[in-house]
């Protein structure tokens, strides 16, 4: 491998330990969500790491300080060696998390994973998840498998995190979502707005909630929080505030390559799971040691420190707080990953964010009305 041996480490930049290891075991998945965050060309990716290769990665990361290990995908349940991987990593002292859609989960496998030492199961409900829509529409039947699996997870003594991705068409039902999660005895509930699709798609799909919707959802969540606290209820609600109604971006993952290490099915190492879209060459665990990858590779050092920043970040006194925001968002929206995250009011591209906010308000009129207006407008023009 070209970069083995050479070091791109930046002098004077203190690098944290890769505390969080995300193992994307496979891109295979029984579902085909139109909004999948997996790469479109996943069929062209290299072959999946073998059981032994994964275990070697776990060992190396553990020695470097990793304590949390997440198994995800695709759908990680597709990997037949999952129990073996859980056992190996649990024996190394990892806290093991399974992140699944619940499709393909059975009582038998839940028991098998418990035996292997799995610590926690997170069931994710994607925004485009038909089952969520069924649930919100009141059809519990189509939703039954997920509910059944959530109950089985609790019955086997696991703590459970339920993760709901919300958007403008379901966020108003947040009260019912929380109610259901509590009924299922979730220990943690993560409520996140679907931001990762990227702005353009978000708008095209008409998914961006309005500011009023968001504020309402946040208010309802904190009312629930107070209620639960008053009861001494252990369930914790985590409302992930999206940043598109902010004037400053979020600090991404505590900085580039500083906490989080993602390994894709073919062994490519990434500092964040959406980083694969960036025009940056990332190393592979088949070619270099994890230590070299983390501390010395080009990809992991690309946005460390501050020397890569152009203006306005370069001379900004807030750069140590937010690191200029999200590199992927900057790339997606401005075409240059070095730019300030356009969420920032100081960014010359902030207009994109303002336009999207405005569109969210406009779209609330409904597509038909908008089209009607255009049609009428064009007729008036034609008359003149």
């Amino acid at each position: 491998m070209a970069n083995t041996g050479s070091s791109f480490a930046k002098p004077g930049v203190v690098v944290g330990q890769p505390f969080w290891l995300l193992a994307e075991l496979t891109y295979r998945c029984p579902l085909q969500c139109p909004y999948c965050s997996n790469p479109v060309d996943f069929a062209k990716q290299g072959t999946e790491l073998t059981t032994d290769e994964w275990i070697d990665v776990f060992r190396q990361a553990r020695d470097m300080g990793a304590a949390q290990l997440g198994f995800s995908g695709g759908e990680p349940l597709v990997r037949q060696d999952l129990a073996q991987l859980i056992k190996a990593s649990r024996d190394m002292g990892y806290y093991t998390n399974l992140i699944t859609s619940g499709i393909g989960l059975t009582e038998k496998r839940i028991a098998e994973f418990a035996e292997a030492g799995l610590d926690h199961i997170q069931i994710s409900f994607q925004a485009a998840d038909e089952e969520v829509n069924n649930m919100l529409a009141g059809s519990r039947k189509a939703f039954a498998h997920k509910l059944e699996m959530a109950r089985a997870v609790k019955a086997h003594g696991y703590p459970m995190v339920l993760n709901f991705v919300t958007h403008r068409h379901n966020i108003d039902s947040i009260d019912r979502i929380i109610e259901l999660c509590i009924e299922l005895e979730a220990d943690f509930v993560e409520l996140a707005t679907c931001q990762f699709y990227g702005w353009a798609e978000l708008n095209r799909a008409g998914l961006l909630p309005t500011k009023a919707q968001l504020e309402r959802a946040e208010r309802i969540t904190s009312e629930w929080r107070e209620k639960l606290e008053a009861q001494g209820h252990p369930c914790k609600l985590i409302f992930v505030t999206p940043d598109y109604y902010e004037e400053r971006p979020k600090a991404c993952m505590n900085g580039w390559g500083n906490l989080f290490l993602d390994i894709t099915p073919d062994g490519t190492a990434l500092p964040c799971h959406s980083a694969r879209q960036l025009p940056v060459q990332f190393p592979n665990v088949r070619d270099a040691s994890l230590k070299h990858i983390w501390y010395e590779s080009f990809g992991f050092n690309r946005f460390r420190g501050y020397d890569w920043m152009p203006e306005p970040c370069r001379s900004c006194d807030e750069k140590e707080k937010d690191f200029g925001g999200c590199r992927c968002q900057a790339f997606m929206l401005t075409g240059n990953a070095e730019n300030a995250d356009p969420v920032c009011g100081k960014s010359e591209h902030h207009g994109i964010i303002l336009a999207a906010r405005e569109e969210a308000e406009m779209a609330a009129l409904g597509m038909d009305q908008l089209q009607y207006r255009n049609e009428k407008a064009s007729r008036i023009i034609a008359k003149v």
Partner: protein
Amino acid sequence: MTVALHQTPVFRRGYRFQFEPAQDAHVLLYPEGMIKLNGSAAEILKQVDGQRDVAAIIAALEAQFPGFPTLKDDVVEFIEVACGKHWIELR
């Protein structure tokens, strides 16, 4: 939350207490997170085995660390806080 001496603390399901060499500290791991513990918190949590009640934990710590007059109160207070945070539960 008031703690009675005859109650037995246990870790909440999904909360794991262990030593992390990379942190050179005891930590509490839970779904997707970790709390790094200071020395006294670690000493108290080491005693949490699902068998010993609060009184027994205090006795064990008093034997181990004699000459700390506030030890009993400190332990009770810590257990109260840990219960409030739902790290441990009382049986």
